[in-house]
């Protein structure tokens, strides 16, 4: 079963929790990252403020396959303060994206 990482980035607040969770879980060096938060904005777009954060998993992200195989949740998903990260089977992702409102939701297969 292939898995992907769904991100409800419309509500990501850029808290850096996923980055630090991953560093600690994987024992990465300080200049490495398994996931990194990108910031876009704030900038006025069509008269309203646009300000998004999008966490982007790197090639070092294996969606914590081993950990999940033990029935545990990936640390980025568990610790995420806004609860916007979900690791799901790919065939469930489209349905979940619509369920979340179908706006500012994305997914990654790192």
């Amino acid at each position, binding site marked *: 079963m292939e898995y992907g990482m769904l991100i409800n980035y419309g509500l990501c607040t850029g808290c*850096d*929790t996923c980055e*630090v*969770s991953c560093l600690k879980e994987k024992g990465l060096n300080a200049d490495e990252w398994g996931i990194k938060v990108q910031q876009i904005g*704030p900038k006025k777009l069509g008269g309203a*403020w646009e300000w998004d954060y999008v966490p982007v998993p790197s090639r070092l992200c294996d969606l914590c396959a081993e950990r999940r195989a033990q029935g545990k949740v990936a640390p980025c998903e*568990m*610790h995420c303060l806004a609860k916007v990260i979900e690791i799901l089977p790919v065939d469930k992702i489209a349905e979940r994206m619509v369920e979340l409102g179908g706006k500012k939701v994305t997914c990654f297969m790192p």
Partner: protein
Amino acid sequence: MTLADQPYVTEEDGVMKVRTCAWSPPGDHPVGCGLILHVKDNKLIKVEGDPENPVTNGRVCPRCLALDEIVYSEERLQSPMVRDRSERGKNTWKKISWDEAYDILEDKIHEIWDKYGAESIFTLTGTGRESTLYAPVYGPAICNTPNGASTYAFSGEACYGPRATITNYLLGAGVPEIDWAQYWEDRYDHPGYEVPKYIIVWGKDPLYSSPDGFFGHSIIDLMKRGSKIITIDPRLTWLGAHAEYHLQLRPGTDAAVGMGLLRVIIKEGLYDKEFVDKWCYGFEELVEAVEEWTPEKVQEVAWVDPEQLVGAARAFATNAPSTATWGVALDQSKASTQAAQCFLALCSICGYIDVPGGVTITKPTSFIGKWRYDMMDVLDPEMAAKHIVDPDGKYALFNAGAAMGGVQGDTLLNWLEGKWADRPEYYPLKMCWIIGNNPLACMADQPQRWYKAMQDLDFIVAQDIFMTPTIMGLCDLVLPLSTFAEHEGLVTPNYGRNQHFIGAMNEAIVNPNTKSDLEILIDMGRRMRPELWEGMETPDKFFDAKLKENYGYGLDEVKAVPAKMSGYEYRKYEKGLIRDDGQPGFQTTTGRIELYSPILDAFGEKPVPYYEEPEFSHLSHPELADEFPLYYTTGGRHISMFHSEHRQAGTTMRRLHPWPLVTINPAVAARYGIEEGDWVEVTSPQGSMTQKAHLTEEVNEKFIHVEHAWWFPEQDPEAPNLYGVFKANANNLIPHESVSVTGYGAPYKNGICKIRKVSGLDHE
């Protein structure tokens, strides 16, 4: 009992997983985030969230995830240390044993008592840390001084105290909090709970600060459930960018905006008439007070777009239930009282107090509140009368000590500087004991003046997890603190003033070198005034006794669960559950919520809100407008740092946010030739400081925003540098004693300034 046998520990592959609740040192306010500390052979190897914690549900911010880097930092204090008074500012500390340290402290207190009297001892405490719970006690109950309880090196006590005090008087309650179903295990599914339709977030950025016990990201939980946001903030915060309404006000004009909102709601008849008739006092006087605050006048004074103001007022008042939360910005202006009056009136006249999805309130104190008050009331009348107050009679409301005891911060600096040395009531202060505070970095307005004034003291002692600029510059004795992973404790959100749970802080690793604040206070209390500390040999005994007195259950019951939830009863005012006499109504002088406050009147403050222009603005000082063309706000912070904690070089937290940032609008920066990452000197009429430019439209072209509490542990520790504490220090900008007649509120977040590009943190 070994660790493995404790009910809060599970074992997996030789790793002990210890459940606990967090509270600084280090890391956070009393949010009590549920953690699972992974421990192997008495070593913390990993931190995870506790998914069973009903409040945080496994969520943890970066600071606690990197807890190991603090626990095992080579820079941590691991032994009591002493230094000769003549060597202050020099890194010539000598390690001593705990017994030696306690003996020195005991001898010093006795010496001061005998030579000068106990009144010449004062305490300085901080805000936010675990020690906040015990801080009111150690001045009177250990040192026998009236100059103890909750004294800060802080102009206008400009954090929490103003809000807590005004709520005490106007609502007769603890601190109001939004209803995020925080009191129950089943949380948002609790029968009878309603999701607020609108949430006003006023002068607060809770997502990144989780203040006082409020788990900031619960706002996101509520947004997912349909809550809409109204922000009142000079800055565009992330929440502001995602809000229905953003009232972008001029710094320090909160009362004008508040009166404008009230006027719209009153004029358009949108308030809850039944609630106002039955439960509020002085509505007619409030109506009169806000009459002149038309949307146009609010715009003229406070910059707020009239459409946003009117829209926000209507949305808030006509969508019941809605709620509101207020932040430190309301404390950090001279007009803090008026802003707070407006905030409370707004929530009250809309009928949102103590209803599902509205604003929750509880009695002012719970848990160890009574113990705290009892322990402050242990001075003989002659000693109590020596309490330092302004000899000209200023700050009567503060000095009456409703929510906060202690010495008013501005009065204290004046006293230390000898302003009243020729007055009959004057006596010199000789000793200070600092707990949970790093005032030179964090709080002290005009920090160099505090630094100089405190040099005259005979003896200064502090306790902390790291050496700080304050300790290096001023102290003669330092006691090393344990982190929350290394001791027993309890977390009580909002310091007990609106407490949704009690959480056990469980010792996961043993550090024989350090002690907790409470352990130190108990040890010293039993040495100095043993009659007051009987039966309290250990924190566990203390907590167990206090829990049983207050709730009928003991420590074991708290330790057995992720969080002992408090439960909540709505509409307590109808049921006689707020007033001490059991009658319906509120615990105020009139028995109602006071929109008109007879108490404020009695203390020389106006009973209804009014507008006062900040002391340093382009309107109050038009002659300074050319030289200081911009406004500033301070207090900026990043999620990776808690006040002045987490600055240690090389740590993950410092790497996330390596330098103090001054936020500047790109158009303003262009005018001064400033680019992203340039060093920028900010100068107010009171002083200067330097931070690194960050260009963003989070601020408009009229003001800049600077960060607070910076020092640089990697720099020269010795005086005069003191880890660079005076270089990027936002408080250099702040005027001393620009406070209201109540003694509360100081302009940490509103002043005028100029900026220029400079070559570095150190520059000509």
